């Protein structure tokens, strides 16, 4: 009898799965004025689909149905906050995770100069890097500065000589559009005694692996020692050749950046 029951159950499952295809939900939509902010930022998450709910986290973990349900716009105040959200519904498989990192303003930058970006992706010149505007993972967003150079140099002048602990850079990663993370970032501080920049630390953002889609990627480079300065130099070495696994292999990559913070 028991055997027959399970046999019946199995057949029933087959028939149910045949007539009812369970689809995965799409990602919730995250809307914000800018991912870079001075005092507070506001994040609205939308998912207009009947029979579904958004759940989110602020601790970097992927959301589950046990995490906070989204009910109203989220206020962001901290220096770096990553919000992750996903949609859930009884008739669907949970969505992929949507994520955005909000980055608060750092030390006051008096002046900033950079290698000229490409004409098509010139943004608002070097000032675009410190205007607390941007953070949209689309290459068409006007806030990005796009470069095809081998090396990009950014000189930062702070308002005062102060202790500097970190430099943060935010990039676009959109390999389908030939936009790659750089090979290396070198950070220097001006040494008034030697009258030249001295090397502090470096970072190697590109890991060689392929990724899909389009996303913001931020990198923090620690100065590595206690320093006081009002002048920094950030040297970005772009990836000169698109890797072999890419359909455009051998071409020069694009490097898209916005924006830069000093802490």
């Amino acid at each position, binding site marked *: 009898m028991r055997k027959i029951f399970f046999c019946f*159950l199995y057949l029933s499952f087959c028939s149910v799965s045949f007539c009812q295809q369970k689809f995965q*939900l*799409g*990602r919730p*939509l995250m809307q914000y004025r800018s991912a870079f902010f001075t005092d507070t930022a506001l994040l609205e998450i939308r998912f207009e689909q009947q029979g579904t709910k958004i759940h989110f986290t602020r601790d970097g973990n992927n959301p589950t149905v046990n995490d906070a349900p989204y009910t109203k716009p989220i206020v962001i105040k901290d220096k770096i906050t990553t919000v992750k959200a996903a949609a859930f519904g009884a008739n669907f498989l949970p969505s992929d995770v949507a994520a955005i990192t909000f980055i608060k303003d750092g030390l006051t930058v008096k002046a900033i100069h950079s290698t000229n970006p490409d004409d098509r992706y010139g943004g608002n010149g070097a000032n675009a890097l410190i205007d607390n505007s941007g953070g949209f993972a*689309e290459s068409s967003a006007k806030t990005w500065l796009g470069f095809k150079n081998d090396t990009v140099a950014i000189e930062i002048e702070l308002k005062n000589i102060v202790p500097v602990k970190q430099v943060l850079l935010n990039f676009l990663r*959109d390999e389908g559009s030939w936009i790659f993370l750089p090979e290396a970032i070198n950070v220097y501080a001006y040494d008034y005694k030697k009258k030249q920049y001295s090397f502090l630390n470096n970072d190697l953002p590109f890991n060689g692996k392929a990724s*899909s889609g389009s996303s913001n990627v931020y990198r923090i480079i620690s100065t590595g020692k206690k320093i006081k300065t009002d002048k920094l130099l950030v040297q970005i070495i772009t990836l000169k050749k698109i890797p072999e696994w890419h359909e455009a292999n051998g071409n020069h990559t694009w490097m898209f950046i916005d924006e830069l913070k000093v802490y």
Partner: protein
Amino acid sequence: MQRRNFIKQSSIAAAALAVTPSLRAFAGPQETILGHNNKRYRIDTNWGKLDFSRYPVKDCHEMVQDGKGRIILLTNETQNNVIIYDRSGKLITTWGNEYPGAHGLTLFNENGQEVLFICDNSRHQVIKTTLEGRVLLTLDYPKETGQYTKADEYVPTETAIAANGDIYVADGYGKDFVIQYDYLGNYIRHFGGRGDMDENLLNAHGVCIDNRNAGKPQLIVTSRQQNAFKRYTMEGKYIDTIPLPGAWVCRPVINGDHLYAAVLQSSSNLWKESGFVIIMDKDFKVVSNLAGSEPVYNNGKLAEMYQTIKTFQYPHDVCIDDEENIYVAQWNSGHVYPYKLQPVV
């Protein structure tokens, strides 16, 4: 849900199905119905499946229905560029192996004879054929415009044919001009193109003629990367822009009072198979998104749209048949054959 409860509930559901099998033909609470308002659909992802070893597809770019009710699919697979189905998805015939860049497909009734216009991205040409594939006319790159120095710069994606036979070609992967010819292929004018003005286009992927206003036909052109349609007079004078925030919209397809279009992907989730299908009423108001967000207007302004259900990957075109079923052809979606969507009444 605990496993024991799950089995219990499943067996109740199974028993219900066993007792009333006929109910399964209707939309049960579990079935996914796509769309909103009075434009809601049930999807059949098996509709156009064929034996891949005999009738392969690459990108399924566009579809049209002919006067006999047959559904004609254009793919850039040169083993069979054109695949002709009946409404039930049964294969009728195939033809064509000389269109490696087969992209745009338009059907036009020319004095009682139906003809096809194929845009070929790789050949940089527009080819007019009979329904059986006999070539009637070939349009090369439009040097007459003074905008092109070589064929490579011209990558036509779509055509629209006016009642008088004038041919409008959208150079959607080239320089984004729309080029107008007479029915013989003589150049008349061009308009659109790249730039910062309202009348300019960015990825002019599709074009169609809107005959819904009797006696006042207009052109609707896609500006895909701008997430918009743009309207022009039949002489190429810019009228206005219809913003479609968030939607990488493909060609507009008009059927009855409604405009339908495949959306390749959502701006908020690029290159992640985030497409859907939009349906607009006669006043260009979005009334339904199939596998997309419920359309929201705030003070008359359309809020950003996006995929909500991963039913489609990269929808590239829609075809609406004489029974108001929708067929969806997809680009770069794992060699998938077209899906059929039937209206839920």
